[in-house]
């Protein structure tokens, strides 16, 4: 009987869920002589099941346990050793009979192929899984040939806009200049998005290898990974990976014995959302305040320190090795004709299976939510999905059969964006959602363009007014006018897309706006100023629980008598509603 291998997912999501405790316990146990191989890996995507422990090497094959508790794990391993299905939350089995297998079976893993599989801190493990073979292959080709492969693959930039990567590379390759740069944009800032973090935490070498290949193809000798400082584990793994790659001759002078020379730096961003915009990102690397600058000239012509520069996002770079290894044709077989390949999404919100997924382009939103994501978290019906983060838009139920590709998503008014997907159910107020996203973008505006700096603030103020029941019909027109000019009159994507959540909610949920303005009512019962809390006399038993929690003491009533809320004094905080155990308070 071969030795059992125990792998613990130690990405940020796992650690946050307590995986480190499990790992330390196992490590201590193994040091004391327990007979299993202990390995670390990163995130497999099912963040909602963390901590996840994978067991392999036994007769049962590979199986994964979710929501592992430190108290049970040793027993679970013992059961596995005895070829018994552990008495635990088995989420994946090799035979696809586990409860969560369908979540993976609908996925196609190119970018995340190694995530949750290999030890991200081990270059050897990466190499054992075919790492750096693409680079070796590339070294036998001419740079032009490499660009041709990427062009032929049809890969489009995964940062959001979907610009053909091969074409972008060819611009940088053709640009005149002795010095060129490649940059990896890892400044993931959308609320609810964590694709880049998981990728970098789980498989840093894949991104680095992609960048080395890109640098070779474009003739760059220096590169930067611009990563948020708030991603300490990603930064740590990247630093280690760069040092290891250097040690093994994949980075630095005469890479793999050739004349090719490439160094890679990490620049930690200080948390400004706008630095995800390529020109602002380069300003930030140069040590200036991260503010976008006018294009053209585009970075390919004049980028970092005025040199030709190519910027791709983490996911784009992470596709490169697979394409080189498998060829452009195989890549094109995945996805749609105009949007080949896969797309990674971060599923969050009111969805059962929140986490990271990678699906082939062309899949419908319905399949993502109901098959891959496991449907809604509660029994409340689906209402909308926000795609593309704060720059994206809300797609309603009626458009759930939209397929995931750049053009179809754009047609809905949302954008593919980098891959955040926030699922909302009927308990979400769409005006409030628009307000939430706009609040984010307006506070993250760099302050340069008039429309973005002041216009988004004014839109936010109008939305806030509406959620307080103080909106007028004129406000709707003002929102539309502001949105139009902010979109047309901003230098960078932040401003150009900031009104999207408002525009799409106005497009698909105008009735909710009208309910707030005309009827002074929030249909989703979210906007507290518009809520009216009342005690239902038939249900109230006079337990006084509501009166005791009311912060303004506006509930009167004696014990065992029906209570009454003074509507004049009520501040709509909802404390009574939560405190009542007898559903005796109505909200509406």
């Amino acid at each position: 009987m071969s030795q059992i291998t125990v792998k613990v997912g130690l990405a940020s999501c796992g650690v946050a869920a307590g995986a480190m405790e499990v790992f330390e316990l196992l490590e201590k146990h193994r040091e004391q002589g327990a007979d299993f191989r202990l390995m670390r890996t990163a995130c497999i995507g099912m963040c909602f099941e963390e901590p996840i422990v994978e067991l392999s090497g036994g007769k049962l094959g590979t199986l994964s346990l979710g929501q592992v508790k430190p108290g049970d794990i040793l027993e679970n391993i013992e059961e596995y050793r005895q070829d018994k299905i552990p008495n635990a939350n088995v989420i994946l089995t090799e035979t696809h009979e586990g409860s969560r297998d369908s979540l993976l079976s609908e996925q196609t893993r190119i970018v995340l192929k190694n995530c949750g599989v290999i030890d991200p801190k081990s270059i050897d493990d990466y190499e054992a899984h075919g790492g750096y073979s693409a680079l070796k292959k590339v070294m036998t080709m001419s740079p032009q040939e490499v660009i041709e492969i990427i062009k032929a693959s049809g890969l489009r930039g995964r940062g959001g806009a979907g610009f053909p990567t091969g074409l972008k590379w060819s611009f940088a390759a053709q640009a005149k200049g002795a010095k060129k740069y490649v940059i990896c944009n890892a400044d993931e800032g959308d609320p609810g998005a964590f694709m880049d973090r998981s990728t970098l935490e789980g498989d840093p070498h894949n991104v680095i290898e992609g960048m080395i290949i890109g640098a070779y193809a474009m003739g760059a000798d220096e590169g930067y990974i611009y990563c948020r400082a708030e991603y300490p584990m990603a930064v740590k793994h990247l630093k280690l990976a760069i040092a290891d790659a250097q040690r093994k001759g994949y980075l630095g002078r005469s890479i793999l014995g050739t004349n090719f020379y490439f160094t890679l730096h990490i620049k930690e961003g200080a948390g400004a959302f706008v630095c995800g915009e390529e020109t602002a990102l380069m300003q930030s690397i140069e040590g200036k305040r991260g503010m976008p600058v006018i294009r053209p000239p585009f970075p390919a012509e004049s980028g970092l320190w005025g040199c030709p520069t190519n910027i791709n996002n983490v996911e784009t770079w992470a596709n490169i090795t697979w394409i080189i290894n498998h060829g452009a044709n195989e890549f094109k077989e995945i996805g749609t004709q105009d949007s080949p390949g896969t797309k990674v999404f971060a599923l969050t919100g009111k969805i059962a299976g929140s986490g990271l997924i990678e699906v082939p382009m062309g899949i419908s939103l319905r399949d993502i939510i109901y098959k891959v994501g496991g449907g809604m978290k509660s029994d409340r019906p689906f209402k909308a999905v926000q795609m593309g983060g704060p720059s994206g838009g809300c797609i309603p139920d009626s458009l759930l059969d939209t397929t995931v590709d750049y053009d179809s998503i754009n047609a809905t008014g949302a954008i593919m964006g980098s891959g955040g997907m926030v699922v909302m159910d009927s308990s979400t107020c769409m005006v409030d959602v628009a307000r939430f996203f706009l609040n984010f973008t307006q506070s993250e505006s760099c302050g340069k363009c008039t429309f973005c700096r002041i216009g988004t603030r004014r839109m936010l103020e109008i939305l806030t007014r509406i959620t307080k029941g103080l909106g007028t019909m004129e406000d709707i027109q003002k929102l539309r006018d502001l949105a139009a000019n902010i979109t047309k009159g901003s230098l960078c994507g932040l401003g150009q897309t900031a009104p999207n959540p408002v525009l799409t909610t106005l497009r698909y949920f105008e009735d909710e706006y009208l309910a707030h303005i005309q009827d002074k009512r929030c249909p989703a019962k979210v906007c507290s100023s518009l809520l009216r809390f009342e005690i239902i006399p038939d249900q109230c038993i006079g337990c006084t629980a509501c009166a005791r929690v009311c912060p303004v003491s506006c509930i009167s009533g004696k014990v065992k008598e029906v209570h009454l809320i003074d509507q004049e004094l009520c501040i709509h905080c909802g404390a009574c509603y939560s405190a009542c155990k007898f559903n005796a308070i109505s909200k509406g």
Partner: protein
Amino acid sequence: MQVVLNGKNLEAPEGMTILDLANREGIAIPTLCHDKELVPNGSCWVCAVKVEGRRGFVTSCGTKLTPGMKITTDDQEIHAARKMALELLISDHYADCEAPCKLACPDQVDVQTYVSLIANGKYHEAVKVIKDTLPMPLSIGRVCPAFCEVECRRKIVEEPIAIRQLKRFAADEDLEDFWQYIPEIKPANGKKIAIIGGGPSGLTCGYYLSFEGFEVHLFEAEQACGGWLRYGIPEYRLPKDILDREIELMCMGGMQIHYGMALGDQLSLSDLSRDYDAVYLAVGAQNAVPMPVQGSDLCGCYLGVDFLKSHAKGQTPDLGKKVAVVGGGNTAIDCARTAIRLGCDVSIIYRRTKDEMPAELFEIDAAMQEGVKFHFLCNPVEYSGIDCKLNTVKIEKMSLGEPDKSGRRRPEPTGQCFNEEFDSIIAAISQVPEVEPFSRAENQIGGETLPISRWQTAIVDNATMYSGMANIFAGGDFQRGPATAIEAIADGRKAAEAIQSYLLTGELPKPKFVFDSKRAQKLEDVAPEEYEMFIKAPRIQMPQIPLEKAICTFQEVETGFSEIQARREAARCLECGCQVNDTCTLRSYCSQYEVEMDRFMGSISRHPIDYTHPFIVRNANKCINCGRCIRTCAEIQGANVLGFIYRGFSAIVAPEFGESLTQTNCLACGKCTDVCPVGALVERNLNYKLNPRPKEDILQNCGLCGVGCKIQVEMQAGEVVRITTPEQDPGFNGKNLCFKGRFGWQSFAGKLSLPLIQQNGKYQTISWKDAIVAIQAKLEQAESHSIEITPHITCEEMLIAQRIADTLGLDLRANRRYFAFSDYWLDLVPKEYAFGLLEDHNEFVVIGNLNCTLRSMIRLQQRQGKKLTLVAYPDEPFAKFADLKLSNLSDLPEGGNPLFIYNQNRISEAEAGHIWQLAGSNQHVLVTTDYTNHGAFLSVGARPVRTRKVDFALCFGQVPASKADFKVAITPYMPEGHEADIILPGPNYLEIEGLAIGDNGEVSRFVNPAKSMVINELMRVFYTLNWISPATADLPHWNNLALGLLAKMSHSVPEPYDSLPDIALREAVVPSDAPIEQYLESLYKLRKTPVQF
């Protein structure tokens, strides 16, 4: 390349932006953030245009043309977007274009400006400003209820500025001034105007029209003019001799007054309308509203207006001993205080309480002090008398109910009554115009009657006072009902403007939209925290005659401010109106696009105004985040003291950590104030309270170093108050000036005004005459002389010095320090654009420190891709721009064809020698100096001073270098550290009309903007001493000679460079010794010292 601009095919060069092309084609595109010297920023978006195929708008400043580009620069969508951009900017522009006092004044008097002029001691000028809109400051300065003071922001600090009293002060000063302000009278235009009524409104209308060249006939029913000012305002508030003098002044434009002429009696409206080109009816509201009380027909019952008028005419009725006055307005108070002065026992009966009284508080208090009793919450309901003579007044007690329409609580009868005995009662309730005559046939025109409202007032258009009937205009109380004099004046002025336009253009003036940004609609809406930085300074109390004297005479109670009091009071003004409200780009676009200030009202970023820098006021409330200051400071000047802080809506321009500019590396070059398109960064003057009023701009050159930048000298009241770069006609220096050029002249406050003589080791001021006597005495004994010049003076002064030397049979001499080995090879050919030399080179090697503006000009060249090497450059912010930094000239790589640049006063001669050797036969060396007139200095052929001692030495610009028994220096400043026997004040570059030849032959012109006479005084000295002939004691003579010198220089050719002369090169640096340098130095140090407002 070919592009299409608004449908027109055009040829345009590579690299041109849409904005440049539009400008070339005369198409105006607004822009706030663009700056020619800087890389386009594209932040304001008011320059938005559309390009076919491009999504959304593009910035025209930042978009370069591409072949075939199709551009639309304006359409409805673009217009709406620009307007929205402006509305958004304005929604967060927490600032006042105009001062609230001005806006509060019914007549829009520019209070802030005239108050600042008073603070600066310019009273005559202040009156000029007042009379632009208000021709009766003597009267209004005494009687105005001062709407302005109600809105004065100083109230937030402690008390409002005493604006009314300051106005009176300036007017009183001007009245006694020989050069009393009387506007220029325009030539007669042949149009005749009739004005009915000689009150403030009629007089004002006549005043403005008569000075505009109209023939004005004013008809007054009484035997004297002034209207209510004469017959309503008592003597103790407005002495009638003051009023007479004011009216006399108002008639200086030719207005003819015809007394005893009343409409309806001697005059008919139809005749007037026919005989005159326009008629202005300002008949006032003459009729008192009677008190509807039983018994008011008794003897001893008077109406307020009638009583005051009778008194003014000297026909005071006998009031008896005990007098009641009914009413709470100013008229009631005037009646009461008049009755007090007549020796009566006076009570005011008023229906409400003191708080509701419409009279001015200070008037009420004065009445109380003078002994007037007050029956508040009382109302007379019945008068009864004996023998038809008033004896008893039945008074009902009142209580206050709900507020009425005016916001005052309504008095309600209580039914409780009491009786009080009075000998007479004066009811001062209200007045109405006499309108009966207008319905008569002779006052109708073409069967039409003048439109009259149900309040018995004329109905007119509020902007033009036009009645809508024929050529008839009407204003003042006649259209308002009883109001204030200042409102009547405002109507009169508006009517004058409208009549002028109506008669000269055939049309009434159309209202022009002028945008006004306001911090708040009312004083109460202003946040007090923003005023915490101001130190409390209580309002100066107006001096008054003693109370015991006041109550028994009609002498004027207020005696007026002293000069010290007035200036101190005026200095309290917080300068709320924007300094640049006339030149602000944002405001002009907002006016052009008819921006609505509150379309996008929302939260506003508020910041305290930073007054800590002595030369620059930083007001972030006005900032529009265009970043021009930041970029200029960082990228051109190098100081890099400003940046954006915070994000999103809160993003704002500030020094690091938002600290004071004085705590930064600010070079006080002031360029940020020059590039700021709004009033967020404005200059300050240490010695002058600046104001928004447009100044007289005079262009000349700076005379503080050899660069000779072109400057715009801004004059107010004959004084230089600001220096900046010329906006319309920029010089080679563009918007660049150094600290010296922009602010350094403020040290001229330390200038000499009279000659000094040294006695017992101390300098003493003497008269010019005594100075001549002292010099003459010495000259008589002197046998040997030395006449010297310096390079700090103009060509004219050099030529005068040369003439003096000639007269004395001498060679012109100069201190050895001014001569350098390189003088032989300098290009002295006078030029208009000497620094064009920089454009001809692609590589610059700068050795040692350089003049600040020249530095900026080199930097701008470098930004076009040229190479800059700095050698032995001081550790200064500019050094970071170097492409190559060397500590030693010998490290300079060989090759290339650089232009070597150095300042002769800032490196040693030995170093300079090394440069010339390196430059070799190319001679590509630009030598700059700290000397105003180095070029002419070398051309006039002065020779180094001799070592032999002389009896008498005279030097222009410094103390003589010769050893001499008696030394005379001619210099604008005290030359500290040098001993002279006599110092004669000389002109500086703002005090003489003259020429200078700066570095590389750049010609500087000075125009004497301040009209100084100092050079004339000097010439008087010279011809008295027989050094020059009386015929030549006239500056134009020397101006001509200076032009001749220039012409001669144009033939001079630099000697061919061969090798360095065989002389020892000085190892020591020879800095400029111009006496002003030390004054500039100490002023420069102030930029690091925080100051208070």
